[in-house]
Structure formats: C-alpha cells, structure tokens
C-alpha cells in the first residue's frame, strides 16, 4: 500500500476493500458464533497466524447494522450470517490496528467504518 493511495483514501470515500498485505495472517473460523446472554454479544473465533483469538460483536451492533430484531439468540445469529463478510472485514481491521488482541465490535465502529469522514 503506497503513501499516495493512503492520502487518496483519506479524501475520497472508498468502498471497504480490505483483504491485502497485513502484517498478520488473519482468518476466521466458520463455526457458528456463540451467544452470550450476560454480555448481550456473540463470540466468534479469529485465527491470527494460526492462534485462536475470541472476538465479540455486541447485540446492539447486530440490531443497528445487520437487521437483528432483538437481542435474542434467534435474532442475532441470522443477522451475523447476513453480515458475516462485513463483520469479518471490520474485525480484521480492528485486529490489525491493535496487534491481534481480542476485540469487541460495537455499533459505533460500524457506523464510523462505513463513512470515514475527512
């Protein structure tokens, strides 16, 4: 990724294109995410250079951005399926910028991620 592209990206709204030359090799398990009724979140596994890291997405994020009707497991799981590609992409960016620590994806992150103001 060149500096020229980086400056372009900051002025022109870019579609969220992601899968490129990260310093880490980030993959995601295809296993169905697990529901956490205490934290109101789904947990799923990311594989960073083969190491498993548990990441989470809040029920609120799934309601706000992926059409979950409520915070119930039955509503969250289909919403996760619908948003899987975007969720993975945003999660990978988050992992990439924090060095591969476990992340919690909250609603605001998706709001910001789509727009990228100035």
């Amino acid at each position, binding site marked *: 990724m060149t500096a020229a592209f980086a400056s372009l990206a900051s002025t022109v709204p870019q579609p969220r294109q992601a899968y490129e030359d990260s310093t880490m090799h980030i993959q995601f398990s295809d296993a169905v995410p697990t529901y956490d009724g*205490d934290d109101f979140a789904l947990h799923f596994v990311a594989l960073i250079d083969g190491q498993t890291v548990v990441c989470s997405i809040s029920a609120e994020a799934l309601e706000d951005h992926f059409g979950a009707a409520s915070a119930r497991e039955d509503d969250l799981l289909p919403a996760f399926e619908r948003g899987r590609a975007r969720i993975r992409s945003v999660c990978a960016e988050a992992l990439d910028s924090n060095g591969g620590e476990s992340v919690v994806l909250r609603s605001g992150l998706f709001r910001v991620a789509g727009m990228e103001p100035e």
Partner: protein
Amino acid sequence: MTKSISANNRQGLNALHFGKALRRSRRSVGVIAALAALTLSASFASMNASAQNGNAVAPARPGSDGAATPAPLAASAPSQAKLSPADQQFVQDAGTAGATEIAASKLALTNSSDAQVKSFAQRMIADHSRLARNLDIVAKRQGITAAASADASVTGSLESLHGADFDKAYIAQVAVEGHRKAIALFSTESKDGNNAQLKNVAARALPIIKHHYEMAQQLAKLKGVTS
C-alpha cells in the same frame, strides 16, 4: 474461511475510533461485572447454606481468599461466596476434559505418524493449555486448587496404539467425541452457571471449542474416520 486483511491505509484513523470504542467497552464491562457480582453475592448469601452442606470438594478458606484476591474483586464481592455444586462440577469436568485433551494430544505427537494429526494435536495443546489457565484463575479465586488430571480410561487406551490405529482412536474419541461433550458442558455453564466469572470463562471458551469440533470433523472426514 478467510483471507488476510489489511487496513494500513486507514489504520491511524480507525485506531483512534477503535481505541475509544474499546475503552468504552472495557468500562461498561467493568460496570456490568461489578453489578453482576453484587447481585450474585446477594443470591449466594441465600444459597450458601445448601452449598456448604453438599460441599466436600472446595477447601474452606474464606479468609485467605479475600486476602489473595486483587482489590476490585475483593471490593465488589467481599463475601467470596463459594461455588454452587453445579459450578464445582463444571470446574472439575471442564478441568478433566481439558487435561485429557492435552494428554492425548501429547501422545499424538509421539504415537501418530500423520502430519495433519500432529498439527491438529499441537493446536489442541496450545489452545487447551490457555483455556485451562483461564479456568484455573477463576477456580483458585473460589478456593479450588486441586490440579485437574486426565481421564485415564481415554489416555490408557491410546497409549498402546501407534500409527493409523492411534489416529483413528484419537480422532474419534478425543478430537470429535471429546469436543462434542465439551460443547455441551460449556454451553450449559455459560447459560445456567451461578458464578458470573465461571459463566464468562465458559462463554468465551465455547467458540474455541466449537472451532475445534469443526476442525475435528474435517480431520475425521479427511482420514476416513467415522465417529
């Protein structure tokens, strides 16, 4: 599965927003945990009598617990209520399941001659050691200090096997069946557990165990093992 992803062109920007989100999330988790601990300690107070009656496992040392526990926990749950019998059973069963997984996978490193089986085993050793550490931390806070030991009936039957025979038994009994049982065990605890910290450990371990189960099924398919 998967592609690698980069974000370096927007990294700075996102790191800012993300840092904020993360800080916020940590704070709210802390608050929720404190609230949960308060509510729980109340409910434990009423449960304590029955828990103590049936309690042969956990050593009774409420005083030393309080002293050994770091400040935030001690402050929010000074009573350090003991685990319910179901939670104690979970600690024991989860400990045994993990120790069995690790012991059998160590055997796989010597008794198997299949690269894929060995690499699966290596992954299991790494992940289950980490899960066991997380479980240990919570168990110790609750006064359970006994180290978990592997299920000898499983490791015993594997010890004498080598090569393809070992692979079959290891994949069927440990990789597939072991994780199938573990999913049930951890699911139940994450939904119905009484201790908030244990519930949380179970909920966070569950996706890893499900991932293992999926890997195990793929391995079984690859090696023609019917489970």
